[in-house]
C-alpha cells in the first residue's frame, strides 16, 4: 500500500511498486489529463511535477515516489501556471492537444526556475516533449508570451 499526495490530496494505492506513476494516475486515480504516448520517456506526454520538478511519469515507479508531492495538469496553480495556460490559450497553441499537458508541465517547470528563458533555454527544457501536430512554433511563442506577462 502506497500513500501518494496528488494535487494536495493523499490517496492510498494498493499496487506493485514497479507500477509506473503514469498508470496509477490514469487508471487508479482517474487523473486522465496526464497522457500516455510512448512508455519509454521519449515523448514527454506523461510529464508531471514531483516536488515541483518535471518528471516523466511513465518512468517513475510508484515505489520510488515516497512522500514527494505530485502535481498533474489538473492541479497546477499559481502565477506561473496561469501565465502559461493563458499564453497557450491566447496564441491558440493546441491542435489535437494530446501532448499539451506534458508541454505545459515542462513549460511551467522551466519558467518557475527561469522567468526569462532564451530560445536555447526553451530548447533545453522542451526538446523532450514531442508534438506530432507540429505546434512547436506556437509553443515557443507562448513560453515567451508567458515570460512577458510574468515580468
Amino acid at each position, binding site marked *: 500500500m502506497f500513500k501518494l499526495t496528488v494535487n494536495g490530496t493523499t490517496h492510498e494505492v494498493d499496487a506493485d511498486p514497479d507500477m*509506473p506513476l503514469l498508470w496509477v494516475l*490514469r487508471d487508479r486515480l482517474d487523473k486522465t489529463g496526464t497522457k500516455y504516448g510512448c512508455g*519509454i520517456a*521519449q515523448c514527454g506526454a506523461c510529464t508531471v511535477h514531483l516536488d515541483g520538478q518535471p518528471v516523466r511519469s511513465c518512468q517513475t515507479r510508484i515505489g520510488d515516489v515516497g512522500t514527494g508531492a505530485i502535481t498533474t495538469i489538473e492541479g497546477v496553480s499559481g502565477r506561473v501556471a496561469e501565465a502559461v495556460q493563458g499564453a497557450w*490559450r491566447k496564441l491558440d497553441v493546441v491542435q*489535437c492537444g494530446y501532448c499539451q499537458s506534458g508541454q505545459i508541465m515542462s513549460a511551467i517547470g522551466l519558467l518557475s526556475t527561469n522567468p526569462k528563458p532564451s530560445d536555447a533555454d526553451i530548447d533545453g527544457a522542451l526538446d523532450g516533449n514531442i508534438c506530432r501536430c*507540429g*505546434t512547436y512554433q506556437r509553443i*515557443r511563442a507562448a513560453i515567451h508570451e508567458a515570460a512577458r506577462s510574468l515580468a
Partner: protein
Amino acid sequence: MLKIRQPTPSPRASRRAFLTGSAAAAGALVIGFRLDLRGARAEGAPALSAVKANPNAFVRIAADDTVTVMIKHLDMGQGNTTGLATILADELDADWSKVRTEFAPADAALYNNLLMGPIQGTGGSTAIANSWMQLRKAGAAAREMLVAAAALDWKVQASQITVESGVVRHAGSGREARFGELAAAAAAMPVPQEPRLKDPSQWRLIGQKALRLDSVAKTNGSAIYSLDIRRPNQVTAVVAHPPRFGATVKGFDDKAARQVAGVIDVVAIPTGVAVIARDTWAAMKGREALKVTWDESLAETRSSDVILAEYRETAKRPGIVASQRGDAEAGIKGAAKVLEAEFSFPYLAHAAMEPLNATIERAADGSYDIYAGLQFQTIEQATAAAILGTTPDKVRLHTLWAGGSFGRRATPSADYIAEAAAILKAWGAKAPVHLVWTREDDMAGGYYRPTVYHKIRAGLDAKGSVTGWQHVMVGKSIMIGSPFEAMLVKNGVDGTTVEGASDTPYALPAYRFEVHNAREGVPVLWWRSVGHTHTAQAMEVFVDELAHAAQVDPVAYRLALLTNAPRLSAALKLAAEKAGWGKAAPEKGRAMGVAAHESFGSYVAMVADVTAGSGSLKVNRIVAAVDVGIAVNPDIVRAQVEGAVGFALSSVLRNRVTLKDGVVQETNFDAYEPTRLTEMPVVEVHIVPSQAAPTGIGEPGVPVLAPAISNAVFAATGQRLRALPLDLSGLKGV
C-alpha cells in the same frame, strides 16, 4: 429545458446502413461510397448547394442562451470543431462566447459527409468544404425561426427585427429578447427550407480570428480523449498481435499470464490473443507473460528493401495507363535533351500521439455503445454490428477527442474498432472493455503510407520546353481489396494512389502516366495527404530538374507551365514574393527551394530556406502561400500549415518503417522519431484572398514540404536528393 429540438438518431437511416448483401464478416462489406475528395470539384457539386436547411440536426439553443453546434466530423486536431461552429454561428448571429460544440452521433441520414455520399466520416480535408452550405443554411434557418417567434410574440413584422450577438431586437417598440428566451417558441415555427443567407459583407465571424473552442479544455486536462473514457466496472484489454502481417494464432499458453496480479481473463480473437485486466499496466504485464505460437504460412515475410527492389523491376514493364495525352515516347525520342530520375518512398506510420484505443460495452437491452476518436462512423458502426451479430442501429457511437490521426483512425476495415468488438464478443461482454494499443502495437500495426517507386523520363527541346513526359509508378493501392474497390477503382486505377501526378496541372504537350498495383501483405492506408505524399515529391523535384536543365529560374519555369492553373500560379507568386525569392543567399551553403502543388482543391506553394552540406541539413525558414477559398478561420488555416511542416519534416529527414523478413523494426519514438522543437523552422503562412467556396487545409500543407526542401538542398549543394527520407550521408561540404 428549452431547445430547438435535440437531434435524434434515425433508426430508418441506420438500418439502411448502405450494405449490400448480407451483413457478413467485415471483409465482405460492399459499400456504395462516392468519394469526391477534391474540394474544388465541390464548388459546383449540386449536393452541396442544394442541401436543405436542417437546423434541428445542427443546432440546439438552451434557456441559458448557450448555442450548441452539432459537429458531424472528428476533430483530431485540425480545428474543424471551431471552424464548423463559426460557419453556423455567423449565419445565426450568435454570441460567440455562448457557442459550444458536441460531437454528433452516428446517423448517416443526418450527418453524412456530403462529399462521401452516404458515409459519415472525416477525411480528404472535406470537413469545412462539405459543410459550408449545410451549416450556413442551418444557422440562417434557426435565425429566421427565432425572428419569427419574436415577431409573433411582439405582434410586429419580422422584416423590422434585427439580430445581433445572440439578441433579437425590434427598434420600433424597443423590445428585445435573448436567444434563450425565444428558443422554445422558435422550435414551434416552421423550418424555412431556403433561408436567406448573409452577404459576405455581413459576416462577423467568418474570416476573422475566433479563438479555438477547445483551447481551455485541452490546456487544463479536462478534455476527454478516447483513452480517457471511464465506464463503470470498465476493464482494459491489450492484445498480443502476430509479429508478421497475415499470421494467425496457432496456439497459446496463458498459465503465466493468468497469474499476473490484476489479469482477469485471456481470450483468443481473430487478430490475436487478448489479455483482459483491471488496468492497463496489469494487461501489459499479462501480455508479457503470455506465450503464443503463430501460424505464419500466409504471412508476409519479405523485407522492405526486397519489396522496393521488386518494384524497381516491375517498373521496367508496361503498367496500366492512368492518363495519357499526346505521344510522350515520340516527344522524348525527338528531344534535344533527355532527363531520367527515380524516386522511392518508404512505408510511414501515422504515429499519432494517442495510440489507437476504443471502449465498447453492451447495454442491458442488448444494444451497444462505442466510445473512441471515431473517424469513419458509418463503416465503424456497420463493422461492429456485423461482428456482434446485430444491426447498425443497435450500435451507438460516441465520438471523443482524438489525439491525432493523420488518417489512421479511418480504415475501410475499421480495424481497431472491429478488434474491440471481437474482444467484447469473445469475452461475453461481462463489463465494458477498453482496448488499448501500446505505442509498439500502434507503430507495428500496419496501415502505413504505402512504399512507392516512381520512374520518370522527360525530353526537352533546345529552348528547354518539355517535349514529352513518361512516368511509371509502382505501389500498393489503398482501395483495391477494400469495400470501396468496386466504386472507386476504375480500370485498375486507384485515384488515391495516382492523384497529384496522373492529373498534373502542368501543361505538358505529351504525357503518359502508368501505374502498377503491387500486391503484398502489408496493410496500407491514407496518410495525411494520401497519394500527394509521394506524387508531389516526384513531380516537383523533377520539374525543378527540368528548370535547371533548361537554365530557367524554377519559379518562372513553373509559371510558364501553369498557364491553365491560375490559382496555383497565384499562390506560387505570393510565396516567392514573400520569401524574397531570387535574392542572394546570406551565406555559403544556404539556399532556397520551391514547390507548388494542388491537393484536395487547395493550392499551396512553399519556399524552403535551408543550410545544407557535409552530411547535414537545417531547415531555417518556410514561407507558404495557400489558397483555400474563403478562409473561415485564418488563424487555424495558418496553424494547419505550420503544423503540416512540423508533422512532415521528420518524414523528410529520417522517418521510415522498415521490415526485416516481414517484422517491423521501428516500434517506438526512439527508432521513429517525430520532429522535435529544436528542428522546427520558422514558418510564415500567407493566405491568398478569395471569394471562392472554402476547401480544406488539414492536409494540403504536407505535400509541398519535401520537394521544397529537396530543391533547396540542390540549390545549396548542387546535389540532387530524390528518395525520401533524404539520405544526407553523401552530402558533400560546400
